[in-house]
């Protein structure tokens, strides 16, 4: 009995910690910055693909290294996703602050682009992109030096764009004609790729009849570390202080000399990097493919909304509550508790499959939000509506 309870608690917490890790980045981007980032799942996917690449690189290094690739992968996943987030913020989102609907559409578009990107990325495409960026941004930089830049601006951009696109396209087709399959073969393709946990993470810790999987424990530890690191960063560092002040009152912070644009970029990159770490973690549990991110996006928004936008502690409690409820309903523990009351037992048995448990959880969330529209831990104070 004791081990059964322990197993139940462990499983509920582990379901919750996967949710929490996935939602942590979003809690910052959506919760603190108010950006509805539909591409959050795809940033996770990038993290998962980075894990795949790191794993393959370490396979080349040989035996002792392959066992520890996962630590390196976590860091790389953070860096890659954070860089992508930075590009996204500088290139798209900063033009759309304060316009949630446009942000939603734009980031959704970005998510579709990223999905198709990992499906069809190959050397030709990369070469084309690099050539295009070099020519276009290089050319723009050169033209900007001219004194009459403002006057010829539109003309220059049009010409540069067409020229560099044409040259990049030509380079791409020449490459694909010359080297054929070697450069046109997609890196990943539409197929899922295989990420395998290192040997010491396979299997589990046996307790009586049960076995606690090591990968789950690893994810729980990783989640705890991430939460601690964020709390430390937000509360104990100068940049954390700036982030908090900007999220509380942007105009006042700007007046006091805080570089709000830099803070925005940093916050978004941080949130994206956390998504990358989450991607690395879920690659140990599930599949890694172009659609990996799609499987998590709804859950992560759910967690942040239930927890209360703007409070990290809300996200933590929300994730755990949803995870444990989902597990308890899905395994039919409630049905067993109510065996004496027949109709109730029947009711819970009906919901005791994984897909029906989801229905029940959503139902509970809808009801909950009727009474607490702002979530578990709503933001208080005068600046809430600002």
């Amino acid at each position, binding site marked *: 009995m004791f081990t059964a309870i322990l197993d139940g608690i462990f499983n509920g917490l582990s379901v919750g910690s996967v949710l929490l890790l996935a939602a942590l980045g979003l809690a910052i981007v959506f919760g603190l910055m108010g950006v509805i980032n539909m591409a959050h799942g795809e940033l996770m996917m990038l993290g998962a693909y980075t894990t795949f690449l790191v794993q393959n690189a370490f396979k080349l290094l040989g035996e002792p290294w392959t066992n520890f690739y996962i630590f390196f992968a976590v860091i790389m996943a953070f860096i890659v996703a954070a860089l992508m987030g930075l590009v996204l913020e500088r290139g798209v989102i900063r033009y759309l602050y304060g316009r949630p609907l446009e942000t939603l559409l734009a980031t959704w578009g970005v998510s579709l682009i990223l999905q198709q990107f990992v*499906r069809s990325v*190959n050397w030709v*495409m990369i070469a084309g992109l690099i050539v295009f960026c070099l020519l276009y941004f290089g050319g723009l930089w050169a033209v900007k030096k001219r004194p009459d830049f403002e006057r010829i601006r539109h003309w220059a951009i*049009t010409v540069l*764009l067409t020229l560099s696109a044409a040259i*990049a396209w030509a380079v791409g087709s020449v490459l694909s004609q010359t080297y054929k399959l070697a450069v046109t073969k997609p890196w990943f393709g*539409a197929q899922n790729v*295989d990420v395998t946990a290192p040997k010491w993470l*396979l299997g589990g810790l046996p307790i009586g009849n049960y076995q606690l999987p090591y990968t789950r424990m690893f994810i729980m530890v990783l989640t705890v570390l991430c939460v601690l690191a964020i709390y430390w960063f937000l509360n104990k560092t100068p940049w954390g202080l700036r982030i908090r002040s900007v999220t509380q009152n942007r105009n006042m912070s700007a007046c006091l000399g805080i570089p709000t644009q830099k803070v925005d970029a940093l916050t978004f990159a941080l949130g994206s990097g956390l998504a990358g770490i989450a991607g690395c973690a879920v690659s140990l549990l599930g599949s890694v493919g172009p659609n990996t991110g799609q499987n998590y996006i709804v859950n992560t928004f759910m967690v942040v909304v239930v927890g209360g936008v703007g409070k990290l502690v809300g996200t933590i409690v929300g994730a755990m509550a949803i995870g444990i409820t989902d597990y308890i309903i899905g395994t039919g523990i409630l049905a067993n508790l109510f065996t004496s009351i027949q109709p109730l037992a029947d009711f819970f048995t009906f919901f005791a499959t994984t897909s029906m448990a989801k229905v029940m959880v959503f139902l509970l969330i809808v009801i909950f939000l009727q009474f607490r529209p702002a979530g578990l831990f709503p933001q208080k104070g005068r600046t809430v509506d600002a």
Partner: protein
Amino acid sequence: MTRQFGRRKFLLYGSATLGTSILLKACAGGSPTASESPAADSTTAASPAAASGGGDTIKVGILHSLSGTMAISEKSVVDSTQLAIEEINQAGGLLGKQIETIEEDGASDWPTFAEKARKLIEEDQVVVIFGCWTSASRKAVLPVFEEKNHMLYYPVQYEGQECSKNIFYTGAAPNQQIEPSVDWLLEEKGKEFYLVGSDYVFPRTANTIIKAQLEAKGGTVVGEDYLPLGSTEVTPIISKIRSALPNGGVIYNTMNGDSNVALFKQMQGAGLTPDKYPVMSVSIAEEEVKAIGTEFLKGHYAAWNYFQTVESPENTKYVEAFKAKFGEDRVTNDPMEAAYISVNIWKQAVEQAGETGTPTSLEKVRAAAYGQKFAAPEGPVTMNTNHHISKTVRIGEVRDDGLFEIVYSTPAPVDPLPWNQFVTDTQGFTCDWTKTGVDNPGKFKET
């Protein structure tokens, strides 16, 4: 920073975006054309003739998802279809003409499938279409094929309970995959079954069949669970399996796609090993094994009609041809082989009819398909008058190299039964499109 985002700027950046997307498409488009250069050679050789003579090629449509969730599985079926057509073209074509393929992308979206099917039939005027994977996509295109009285060759194992005049089903019906595997499990692995599946039509129908069959043959179902498509949280399922089967038992898995990966990875973590908890899967083939990871699947089972490891001269030839065209690292699997059969059965029917199957001669080609025999990589197959084909059933165990060790195969090809005899609604019904004097030859009771 309150600069207006004016109309001019909008036009400018709009054109920039457009330019970039065209660029991306051009680069991405480079891959299929170049990778299929051998095929392109034969089509280009054929197209000038088409331009001058107008009708010197036979146009066929290929309708699969090349993007979206299902692209994972469907892309390789397209490859196999192209291989079969290329072989026919290289051997001199069909009725003296080259076959020209028109590929359309169903984009894993069922209405798109119907739209593209209509486009292939009306605009491109193809004589036949090879395509679809999910039952949902097949159900979506079915009305189009019936309205236009056209032909679809459907290459995937499915739940049965359908028999359309306008579809040839070259994958397995349930009695050619699920039922023999349940019999084998009862005999070899135990009487207690736990059923897990994705939450949509195939697993639910399959599990209805399995439950009826187990009841008839003395097995028991100790639990049943469904996971939403794409979900990867299988912890509750694993807990339930462990409490329902504390001493081990059989798990029958009808999950699709990403959930499979989660199930096997996490079962291994939870210590449910194949010696105590063998899993029989019906949608895991060589490609999926590669994507999930052999170390998680080793020792588990799958039921199919074809495995890459089938030993026959036809299969050796097929596997070698496929690898030569698409790369040494590629594997072949059941739906791919069924697609290969589709093209060849169609080719033989056209040859026998002496007509290509344009709207006027479609009936003739359809009638000629009945009884066509083909020495397929999986062994001899025959097209029946119920539009399904007789196939050998095999059970394979995943081995170290990610391929299957065939542990059981039926002594002879099993005849297909589209209407399931274990499900009360359809008990006693059969399908025979050559039958006259019944209201609906697709579903009637033998008297």
